[in-house]
C-alpha cells in the first residue's frame, strides 16, 4: 500500500467505555482484549495503515495506561515514523483541551494537532467495531459524491437491547442520510452506523470551531441529527464481516464469531493484516492427553486438557484433565487440573485452582476480573 499523506486518521479510544464497564474498569475500549491476541484498537489502526494512512492520532480520555503500553511508539503498526506516524492525544494536551464531553469537544481540544497535518481529509473511527474496512475507498466515495460527511454503515438486525447503544440511519435512494436515530427504542432490520466518518479537514474545522463557540459537544446530536438536512451526509455501506460490541454478551458473541471459518476469512485478509503488539511467546504446546476442538489458540499456550469452542489468548495454561468449553480465556489465565469451566470469560492473569467448577450461561457468561484467584 502506498502512503497516503492526504488522509489523517483519528481514533477515539474511550467512546463506548460505559457499555462494557467490567472490561473497561482498568482500561479503555480500545485496549479491551479481543480474538485471542488483539486489542480492539488494533482493528481501526490496522485498517488505517492498510489504507495507506500513515499519520494517526489516538484521542484518549482516561484509564489509558494499558493503551499507551499497547501502542508504544506505534512500531508494530509501522507507525513509528519520522514523517507522520502515531500521535497519542490525551486530554489537557493543549491550552484549549480539557476533559471533553463528546467528540466535538475532543476534536476542538486537539485542533492544534489536526491543523498541522498536511492531510485534506480526516477519517474518524471508534474502537467498538471489529471489521476490515478500506478507508481509502471511503475517502474516494466521499470525494466522488461531494459529501460534507460520509458515514460508514452496515445492514444489521438489532435486538431492542442492541439498538439502545446504536446510531441508526434512514437512507434515501441516492444513498443520502435523511434520518438519524440515536439509541432508539426499536428492533429489527436497520442501517447501523459503524461510527466511522470521513470529512474534509476544512469542513471539520468549520463544525468543530462553530460547535466550540456554541458549547455543543456531541457530533451525533449536534451534527448528524441536528444538521441532517443542512449538510450532505452520505452513507457508505460496509458489506463484509463486522462485529459491534455493545455489551458483555455481544463481546462474547463477537469473539465466538471468529470460530467461524468464513468470518475469519473476511476479517483476516491476506493483504490486509491485523497488526498487534508482539509478545515473543513461543508456539502453543499441546501436551499428552490434550484434546482441542473448534478453538482459537494464541501463542505461548500450554494445553494439557480438553478445550472446545474457546478463544484462548496468549500464554494461557490449561491443566491436565481440565475441561474448558465455550470460554474466553484472556492473556496468561491459568486453569488448574481437573477444572470444569463452561461459559466463562476470564480477564488477564486469572488463576483458577485445581478441581474448580465454574459455569455461566450463553447469554450471561460468567466474568472473572483481572488477576482474580479462585
Amino acid at each position, binding site marked *: 500500500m502506498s502512503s497516503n499523506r492526504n488522509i489523517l486518521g483519528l481514533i477515539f479510544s474511550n467512546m463506548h467505555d460505559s457499555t462494557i464497564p467490567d472490561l473497561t474498569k482498568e482500561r479503555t475500549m480500545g485496549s479491551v482484549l479481543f*480474538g*485471542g*491476541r488483539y486489542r480492539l484498537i488494533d482493528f481501526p489502526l490496522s485498517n488505517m495503515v492498510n489504507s495507506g494512512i500513515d499519520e494517526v492520532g489516538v484521542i484518549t480520555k482516561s484509564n489509558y495506561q494499558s493503551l499507551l503500553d499497547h501502542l508504544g511508539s506505534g*512500531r508494530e503498526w509501522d507507525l513509528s515514523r519520522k514523517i507522520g506516524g502515531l500521535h497519542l492525544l490525551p486530554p489537557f494536551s493543549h491550552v484549549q483541551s480539557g476533559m471533553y464531553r463528546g467528540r466535538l469537544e475532543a476534536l476542538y481540544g486537539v485542533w492544534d494537532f489536526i491543523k498541522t497535518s498536511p492531510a485534506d481529509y480526516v477519517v474518524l473511527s471508534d474502537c467498538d467495531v471489529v471489521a476490515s474496512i478500506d478507508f481509502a475507498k471511503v475517502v474516494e466515495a466521499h470525494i466522488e459524491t461531494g459529501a460534507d460527511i460520509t458515514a460508514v454503515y452496515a445492514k444489521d438486525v438489532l435486538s431492542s437491547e442492541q439498538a439502545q447503544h446504536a446510531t441508526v440511519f434512514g437512507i434515501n435512494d441516492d444513498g443520502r442520510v435523511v434520518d438519524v436515530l440515536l439509541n432508539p427504542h426499536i428492533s429489527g432490520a436497520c442501517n447501523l452506523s459503524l461510527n466511522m466518518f470521513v470529512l474534509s479537514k476544512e469542513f471539520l474545522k468549520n463544525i468543530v470551531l462553530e460547535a466550540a463557540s456554541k458549547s455543543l459537544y456531541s457530533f451525533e446530536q449536534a451534527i448528524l441529527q441536528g444538521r441532517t438536512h443542512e449538510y450532505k451526509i452520505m452513507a457508505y455501506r460496509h458489506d463484509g464481516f463486522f462485529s459491534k460490541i455493545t455489551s458483555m454478551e455481544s463481546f462474547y458473541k463477537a469473539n465466538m464469531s471468529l*470460530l467461524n*471459518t468464513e468470518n*475469519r476469512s473476511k*476479517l*483476516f485478509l491476506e493483504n490486509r*493484516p*491485523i*497488526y*498487534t503488539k*508482539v509478545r*515473543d511467546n*513461543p*508456539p*502453543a*504446546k*499441546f*501436551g*499428552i*492427553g*490434550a*484434546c*482441542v*476442538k*473448534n*478453538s*482459537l*489458540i*494464541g*501463542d*505461548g499456550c*500450554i494445553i494439557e486438557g480438553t478445550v472446545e469452542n474457546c*478463544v*484462548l489468548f496468549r500464554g494461557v495454561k490449561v491443566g491436565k484433565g481440565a475441561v474448558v468449553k465455550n470460554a474466553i480465556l484472556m492473556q496468561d489465565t491459568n486453569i488448574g487440573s481437573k477444572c470444569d469451566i463452561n461459559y466463562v470469560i476470564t480477564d488477564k492473569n486469572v488463576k483458577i485452582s485445581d478441581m474448580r467448577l465454574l459455569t455461566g450461561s450463553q447469554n450471561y457468561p460468567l466474568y472473572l476480573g483481572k488477576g482474580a484467584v479462585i
Partner: protein
Amino acid sequence: MYKTKKECVAMLLAGGQGSRLYALTHDMAKPAVPYGGKYRIIDFPLSNCVNSGIDTVGVLTQYQPLVLHDYIGNGQPWDLDKLNGGVHCLPPYQTALGAEWYKGTANAIYQNIAFVDRYDPEYVIILSGDHIYKMDYNEMLEFHKKKNADATIAVLDVSLEEASRFGIMTADENGFITEFEEKPKQPKSTLASMGIYIFTWKKLKQYLIDNENDENASKDFGKNIIPDMLANKEVMVAYPFDGYWKDVGTLDSLWEANMDLLNPNIPIDLYDPEWKMYSQNPVMPPQYIGSDAVIENSMVTDGCVINGTVDFSVIYEGVTIEAGATVTDSIIMPGSVIKSGAIVEYAIVGENCVVGSGAQIGARPETVENRDDWGIAVIGHNITISENAKVLPKQIISENM
C-alpha cells in the same frame, strides 16, 4: 563517528552454506533455516547475546544472504536496533586492494577488524549460527576475566564415540587447555569445542594479522588460531557447559533438535520468561484448531489452521493441515499446506510447500525392512507434491513432483 566503548563485541559467523542440509539450504544460509515453530537458528545466538547483555553483534554473512539479511533487518525483534552498537550484517566487501571472499572463519574476522575496533572492546566473543542452545555469555566472560585468560573456549562433555566429530580439548585440573585436536580419530578427551570462543581482543587481533600474513595458513580458528595460540603458550581455558546444545548441521540433527522440544525430559525450555527467545513474529491471526482435529504432543503457532491429525510434530506459522490429513513425528515449515488424505511421517517439509491429497511422505522406521534404508524424508522449500505421490524415507525432494 563517535562510538561508545564496549566491553565485549560478538562476532557471529553466519556465512556457511550448510551443505549437509541439502534442499533446505539451497536458497538460504543455514542460520536462516526455520527451527522450533517460530524461530530461525540465528535467533538462538542473537537472543543469547541480548539476554547476556551483549548489545553489539556483527553477523558475518556470505552464502545466500538475502533471507538472512531480510530476517535480521535493523535488529529490532532482538532489541538490537541501537544508536550505539546493535546488530550489523557484514558481508564481504571490496577494498582498494581488490575484493575477497571470506576464506575461512579467521579471515572473516580479520576482514572486519575495523568494525570491531570502532567499539574498542576488551574482549570479543566468536559465535556461530549453527547451534541450538541457551547460554549466558556473560558468565563465560566473567570466567575468562577471572582466569586472566587470553582465550576461553566453551566445551561440552560428549561421549567418546561422538568425540571424533568435534574439535577436542585436553585440559588440566584447573581447566587450562594443554592440547587441541580437530576431529581426532583417537580422542584423548571428551571435551568438545562448542564453537564459542572469547578472546582478549588485543591478542586475537595480532594472531589474526599474523595468520593472514602466513600464506600457507588456512585462515581458520580451529586449524590455525587455536593451535597457534596453544603453541605460543597463551593462557587458554576450557569453559564447561552442561546445558542443552545441539549442532543442527544435518537433516537428522535438525529433525531431532525440533523433536527435542516435545520431550519433557530434554532440558531446552522455550517457555522460560527469564530467558526469552526472540524472533521476527509473523503478523497472522491466532491458530485455529477445527472440530475434526486431533492434536497431541505438538507445537503449533500463529496463522495455522489444523483440521487433521497431528502428533509429535512441530508446525510452523501459517501452515494448513486439512481434515483427513495425518502428520506425525514431522516438522512442517512456514506456509505449507498438507491436503486431505495426505500422510506425513518422519519428515521435514520446507517452507511454502503443497503436499497433494493422498500423498505419502516418509514412513515409520518399523515399516522398513532394512533399517539402513530408513531415514527422514525431506521436501525442500516451495515444492508441490502431486496427489497420491510417494516420497520414500531418506529421499530428498528439491523439485516439484
